């Protein structure tokens, strides 16, 4: 039961991060390896701007806005400039790595030799299920994740913007001749992905209570595992993937050892890439020539 409940909490974070990653990858077709450092920088902005506030709602607002702005600058402005210049594929991945190195080590220099810590907030037990206590932050994170997933679902399915996003992910030229500007859709995808990334970042940082300049990187790879297990560019798949990854990381850390919690998720990622790169559902990968 502990595994299921804490798995649910981990899954909430992976779902927000994973959906943000997969949404942007699907629409813009840019593998954003700087996503982890965007998560980290959102936490840093929130931490310094709000004076170490652990008020989750304020934190999510600040983190979400910071993430959206940074993601827009990094993705739409910088990476976009490289794409317009004709860089493709591997060069773009290298560009995001260069940006990631710059962000991560600038933050490390800002942080200094100390570990940043939030003042221990009042963590009362809010929910007690079968002897497992979840505090208010964990419950909030789960609820926020559910709400965000519903919002993403509604936007994608019911609005014109959602249709434009799905269309851009599907076929750029067909979208363009239909009178939709792919650039605008891409800009919105970077913004939305950054907002999700920022929200997930502050929930992660405040949830753990301490953070350093490397916090986003390992988390990003695990969230990407969720996204890839669910099928790249498929927000619903990422949600299911997050649930699987959340349970697996908690189970392996409880049964084997805490050191194996990330390793098991990463092994799952590699296994999915090799055996079922299209993810749990669907035919997406085949259309995109992911595999030879």
């Amino acid at each position, binding site marked *: 039961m502990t595994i299921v409940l804490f798995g649910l909490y981990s899954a909430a974070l992976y779902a927000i991060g994973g959906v943000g990653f997969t949404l942007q990858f699907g629409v813009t077709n840019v593998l954003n390896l700087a996503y982890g450092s965007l998560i980290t920088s959102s936490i840093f902005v929130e931490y310094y701007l709000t004076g170490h506030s652990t008020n989750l709602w304020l934190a999510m607002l600040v983190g979400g806005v910071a993430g959206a702005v940074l993601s827009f600058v990094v993705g739409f402005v910088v990476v976009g400039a490289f794409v317009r210049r004709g860089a493709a594929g591997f*060069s773009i991945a290298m560009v995001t790595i*260069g940006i990631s190195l710059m962000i991560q080590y600038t933050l490390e220099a800002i942080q*200094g030799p100390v570990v940043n810590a939030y003042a221990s907030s009042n963590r009362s037990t809010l929910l007690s299920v079968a002897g497992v206590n979840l505090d208010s932050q964990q419950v909030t994170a789960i609820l926020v994740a559910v709400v965000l997933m519903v919002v993403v679902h509604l936007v994608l399915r019911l609005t014109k913007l959602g249709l434009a996003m799905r269309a851009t992910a599907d076929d750029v030229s067909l979208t363009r001749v239909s009178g939709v500007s792919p650039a605008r859709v891409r800009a919105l995808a970077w913004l939305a992905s950054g907002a999700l990334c920022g929200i997930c970042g502050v929930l992660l940082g405040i949830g753990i209570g301490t953070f350093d300049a490397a916090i986003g990187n390992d988390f990003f790879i695990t969230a990407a595992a969720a996204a890839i297990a669910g099928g790249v560019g498929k927000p619903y798949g990422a949600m299911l993937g997050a649930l699987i990854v959340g349970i697996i990381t908690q189970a392996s850390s409880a049964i084997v050892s805490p050191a194996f919690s990330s*390793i098991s998720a990463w092994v799952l990622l590699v296994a999915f890439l090799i055996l079922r790169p299209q993810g749990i559902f669907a035919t997406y990968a085949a259309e995109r020539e992911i*595999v030879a």
Partner: protein
Amino acid sequence: MSQSTVYYLSGLGILFFINLVAVWGLDLHFGFAGVNSFAFIVFQAVGAYITGVFSLGRANTPVTFETYILGVHWPWPLALLLGGIAGAVLAVPVGWIAVRRLRGDYQAMAMLVLALIANSLIAAETGWFNGATGLESVPQPFGNLNVSLYDYHWVFLALAAICGVVSWWIARGIARSPLGRSLRALRESESALAALGRDPNRLRTIALVAGGFLGGLSGGLLIQYVQAWGPASWLYAETFLFFTAIIIGGRGNLLGTALGTLLVPIGIVEVTRELPQFGYPGEFADFQWVAIGALMLVFLWFRPHGLIPERKRVLRPRDDGASGQEAPARALARGSQR
């Protein structure tokens, strides 16, 4: 020059050759075969560990609290060679996992994750290579040579230079051979190559194995020089140091990548250690990494082919009289028609 300056410069020379071997190994993967080898640091790491456990004596756990496998205390040339071979052998499963079916971004992602898994696993498993602490006090080559610390640097420099020459011979041999031509063709157009009856996966595996050997060799040399090796020495970001050297120097060009090695791992990382340090310990290294990231962006923007770009190979066909530059795949097509 004072003795300490000479000592410092010979030390830079040693590190240059060690990095050069690794960069050429990565160039075989990435520059020639077009494999997004984001896990390259693992080849260096496995070479270092294997060389370490073959040259160390048996782990005396009750005294030193170290645990590692083997500890057979074999002669150093054998241990070094085994380090290289370990890198080559590792290339086979890596190729099977990341190269057989995956391409592009997905291949890069899988490689990156493999590097993370390997590092975390070796740090967590204390029984293999002493876990997160790593190996220490690895015997040096010619360790019983009765020379001063200064003179010993020259001995090691000669050894590193010999390994550099061997790597040059391997890399250049592959680059100039028909195999090298096939690899470049594969990098440009896999389907064209496959249509000519070549097996892309076999070619990629050959390049991975050769590059893996060089990676392992450089790791073996490194552990013999610095005498210690642990998970903190090979975080996945280190791979991008080599990638930056290749991008700046010129992908697929051995001379260019040598220049890149001189500029990045030596020029930015090693030489700047002599500058006055500032801030807390490690702050300087942070700015080095920021500079490396910035340099990568600057070169990808202004000079994506590097300082010394790969030479366009011009193959003059003998029979049909057409001249000019040809894509490698077409040149190969012509070759196999004959």
